[in-house]
């Protein structure tokens, strides 16, 4: 039954990810990316990670994509602004080779991945993936990374304000 939910969701995500890369207008790419984020939230729910699924929708599909849309509108990007989008003409050969390399890596990875022997998930307690258990882990084993992340976000906030200012005084 889970497979019946998994395959359409996974196909949806892959198609929309391809849509991000091959769409000619930046707004279309951004909308595909929002759809992909929502599909991924569905996959996280399928993996019993409910808290992360909600975070995915709030942070990625909500905050980050709004920021992207905002910048696209601010820069007034139009369809086909990057006319030579397929590759640089100067190093077309290099681009093709690296593309082939990426696909080759995927092929090799799939070889390795299908030797994985884990076919059934662990017996999960009811509390798996809930806010309570994630919070407990976050505030016991991972307190230091949590605090460091807050400093990182503060630094990013200050950095974004400084970078986007028109004139530094």
């Amino acid at each position: 039954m889970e497979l019946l939910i998994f395959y359409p969701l996974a196909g949806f995500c892959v198609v929309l990810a391809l849509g991000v890369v091959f769409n000619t207008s930046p707004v279309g790419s951004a909308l595909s990316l929002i759809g992909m984020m929502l599909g991924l939230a569905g996959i996280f729910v399928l993996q019993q990670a409910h808290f992360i699924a909600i975070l995915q929708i709030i942070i990625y599909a909500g905050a980050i994509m709004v920021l992207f849309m905002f910048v696209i509108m601010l820069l007034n990007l139009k369809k086909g602004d990057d006319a030579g989008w397929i590759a640089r003409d100067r190093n077309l050969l290099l681009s093709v080779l690296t593309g082939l390399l990426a696909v080759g890596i995927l092929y090799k990875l799939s070889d390795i991945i299908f030797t994985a022997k884990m076919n059934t998930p662990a017996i999960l307690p009811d509390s798996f993936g809930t806010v309570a258990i994630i919070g407990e882990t976050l505030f016991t084993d991972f307190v230091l990374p949590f605090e460091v992340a807050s400093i990182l976000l503060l630094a990013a906030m200050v950095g974004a304000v400084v970078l986007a200012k028109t004139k530094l005084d």
Partner: protein
Amino acid sequence: MLEDTVPLSHYLMLSATLFVIGIVGVLVRRNVIVVFMSIEIMLNAVNISLIAFDNYMNLSSGQIFSFMVMCVAAAEVSVGLAIIIALHRNKPTVNLDEFNLLKW
């Protein structure tokens, strides 16, 4: 076909596929914004496999890791978009090939 659960390899395969799509996007597209979105796809692809391993081994550290990945992504997006706006102010284009001041 109608097994009860999804094998781990399927999640890993989805993750690898999305990651490679992200790499191809970074390599092939020349629009700064789209390249940035491809990086987001790669970050998301990693989250899938972190949570899949969590689910198969009954841990919660992988979920904390994906939480941290989301934090870093938020920081990265805010700074990166600020840089793009600053670049656009200096040179009104979004084509990556035009930004070659720091090249040798």
